[in-house]
């Protein structure tokens, strides 16, 4: 399989295969997919914290202008609005059960098509 790749990509391919193999040694049932599931949860968690922080700062900024405050939705409404926006984004939806990684497969192509500098991928230890 690796032999079919252009030469300059073979080293990265082998490294990623080694990474996958190690992940499967550590977790024989879920392997890499377990790591992806865990990381997706982290992303969702952070996005929620971001939404809370953004709502809070909007609130604070509006307190500085009380005449505008009356027309503005309350923080709860802002957060719900932002959550709707976040749900339209690439990665997944945040139901915390084992099968969520299966949902991920449908949207994974969005992530894969993003242009990333993958040269940095193996420069540091990504094993959590």
């Amino acid at each position, binding site marked *: *399989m690796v032999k*079919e*790749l252009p030469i300059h*990509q073979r080293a*990265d*391919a082998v490294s*990623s*295969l080694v*990474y*996958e193999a190690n992940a*499967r040694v550590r977790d*024989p*049932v*879920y*392997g*890499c*997919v*377990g*790591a*992806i599931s865990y*990381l*997706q949860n*982290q*992303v969702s968690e*952070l*996005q929620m*914290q*971001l939404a809370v*922080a*953004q709502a*809070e*700062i909007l609130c*604070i*900024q509006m*307190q500085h202008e009380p005449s505008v405050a009356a027309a503005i939705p309350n923080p709860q409404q802002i957060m719900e609005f932002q959550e709707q926006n976040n749900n339209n984004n690439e*990665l997944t939806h945040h139901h915390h059960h*084992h099968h969520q*990684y*299966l949902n*991920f*497969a449908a949207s*994974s*192509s969005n*992530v*894969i098509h*993003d242009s*990333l500098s*993958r040269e940095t*991928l193996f420069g540091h230890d*990504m094993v959590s």
Partner: protein
Amino acid sequence: MISERCAACKNQRRKCPSDCIFSPCFPANDPQKFACVHKIYGGSNVGKMLQGIPTYLREQAANALYLEAKWRIHDPVYGCVGIISSLYEQIQNAEIELAKIQTQITFYKLQTQRVEAEPNSEVLQAQSSNMEQFEWDNPTIASWFN
């Protein structure tokens, strides 16, 4: 009645025994699943992997292998590791963004505290100028307090 072969045995063109390790994980109605994992891992390797896993977890393991194989077919160089790296990047960016906003919040809160402190000092100044006026109007009485 002929029981249907599982997807793995169909793919390998062999008989499907009653205790076939693949049949719970690769049902006949989804030939794509076994085809994918066979292409990337090889059927016999999949069988060996499944043997090392307790029976009740084998279907989950087969599903995970299927996903990994799909991603590897889609991206032959990085496979699912590409997704992991982009997730790490997302996490990093989100943490940076969060830190920025929390700093802003702290800044605003400090500003608000400073603004709230100032009106008090104005009141104090007003009080002391009242005292001066009182002393001017009532020099005798004011001297009792000094």
